């Protein structure tokens, strides 16, 4: 009797496994019904994600902040005094101001390059179970956003639009392991391929054996045919280390992205590039050192009795 029960379980298990393999095959063969199921899910989830984002925005960094407690103990007293002053203000003010600051920055960047952009808020992120780096925006095809459009933030490139619904879009972040972008070094114009490696890490491989690379070089997007998926001239990151190991045909290096992908609030999707290639116009300016004021005090001799 127990054996019959075990056989029935095994039969059910095998038939469900075959069904799942069938689904995988359908998806890999590009059957549109399967992809539209996920698009449909995103349409349903977007309003809930928007509510979740509003509710959660003050607490989303809670766990990260816990790790900094030890380092911030000395600041607690100073912050207590400041906290009293801030009590009268609304809790969401900081969040709104932060988003406004990001929006100002991204519009500045888009304005310099004369990109036509649509700005949107980040309402959700890809989860642990996805092993991918994605975010969801609260604007979609109704706002003119289409697949394969470049997404930028105040400091530079964020990623590329992967899919859209009427009111939301999924953006593949540049840190995703599947992300590749053609870049050029500002100044020398040497070209290379930048790859995401997850968790905000990037690697760079130059295309030409003669291509020169040094730490501190700024990388800009090379642009794609018809500006899709990438418009040219967007700041991507800065070279931090060069891999000088022998046996490599071309130079390789590690890169630090300009945009903090963990702190995305407001981003812009480039709908069109009005002026074509902005060249090196968007290279971030190094901060100018503030002049040091030195005051020489010459003691005036006083009469002593």
């Amino acid at each position, binding site marked *: 009797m127990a054996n019959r029960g*075990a056989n*029935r*379980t095994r039969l*059910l*298990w095998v038939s*469900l*496994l075959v*069904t*799942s*393999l*069938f*689904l*995988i*095959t*359908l*998806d*890999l063969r590009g059957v549109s019904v*399967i992809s539209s*199921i*996920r*698009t449909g*899910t995103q349409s349903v*989830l977007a309003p*809930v*994600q928007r*509510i*979740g*984002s509003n*509710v*959660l925005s003050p*607490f*989303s960094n*809670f*766990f*990260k902040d*816990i*790790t900094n407690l030890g380092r911030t103990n000395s600041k607690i007293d100073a912050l207590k005094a400041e906290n009293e002053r801030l009590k009268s203000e609304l809790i969401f003010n900081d969040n709104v101001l932060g988003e406004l600051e990001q929006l100002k920055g991204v519009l500045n960047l888009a304005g310099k390059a004369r990109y036509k952009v649509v700005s949107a808020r980040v*309402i*959700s*992120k*890809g*989860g*642990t*179970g*996805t*092993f*991918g780096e*994605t975010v*969801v925006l609260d604007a979609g095809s109704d706002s003119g956003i289409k697949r394969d459009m470049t997404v930028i933030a105040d400091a530079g490139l964020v990623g590329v639009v992967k*899919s859209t619904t009427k009111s939301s879009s*999924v953006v593949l972040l540049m840190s*995703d*392991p*599947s992300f590749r972008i053609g870049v050029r070094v500002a100044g020398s114009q040497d070209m290379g391929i930048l790859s*995401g*490696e*997850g*968790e905000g*890490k990037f690697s760079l491989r130059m295309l030409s054996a003669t291509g020169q690379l040094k730490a501190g070089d700024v990388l800009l997007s090379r642009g794609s045919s018809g500006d899709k998926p990438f418009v040219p001239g967007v700041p991507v990151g800065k070279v931090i280390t060069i891999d000088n190991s022998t046996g490599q045909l071309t130079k390789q290096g590690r890169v630090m992205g300009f945009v903090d992908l*963990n702190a995305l609030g407001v981003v812009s999707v480039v709908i069109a590039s009005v002026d074509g290639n902005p060249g090196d116009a968007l290279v971030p300016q190094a901060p100018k050192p503030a002049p040091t004021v030195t005051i020489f005090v010459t003691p005036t001799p006083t009469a002593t009795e």
Partner: protein
Amino acid sequence: MTLNRLPAIAIVFLLFFILQESILNKIDFFIGGFSLYLAFFMAWIMQDERNSAVATGFIAGLIADLSPTLEAPFGLWTFILTSMSYVLATNVRAALDSEISPVVMSIVTVSGSSLALFLFVLCGAILGQDVGSSSYVVQEIFGNAMWTFLLSPLYVPITVALYRATLTARNR
């Protein structure tokens, strides 16, 4: 297995999926992330009878595959969760006492979630998906295991209560 339990199970898993996608994915855990959905699934399966567990694995997998941010082919989570549910319900469950202690349930949940994530990466890689460097994968799996263990006092009682709520009179 009673078929009239399945709609209730599907609704419960759908609610946890929405919770995961709209709230938990937005939280910035400082190491890796936390998949409540996977943890809830493992804790649920540990209580279930074999046939029901396999059917639940299939439903939970289908729901997990709906995630719009997922790069992997549709059906991969279904494949993994159906397999995991069979292994947990037949092999692991059979080796444990009939009344599982919360500590044992936490340990099995942590191990099961980690194994499911590892299998997902492995099968994804076989199917041609880019999964990132090994350090990234290890960090993600380790982070998830840590949070799954630390937060188990919160979700295990909820899972047990919800599981009991979906039982029909005949199951009880």
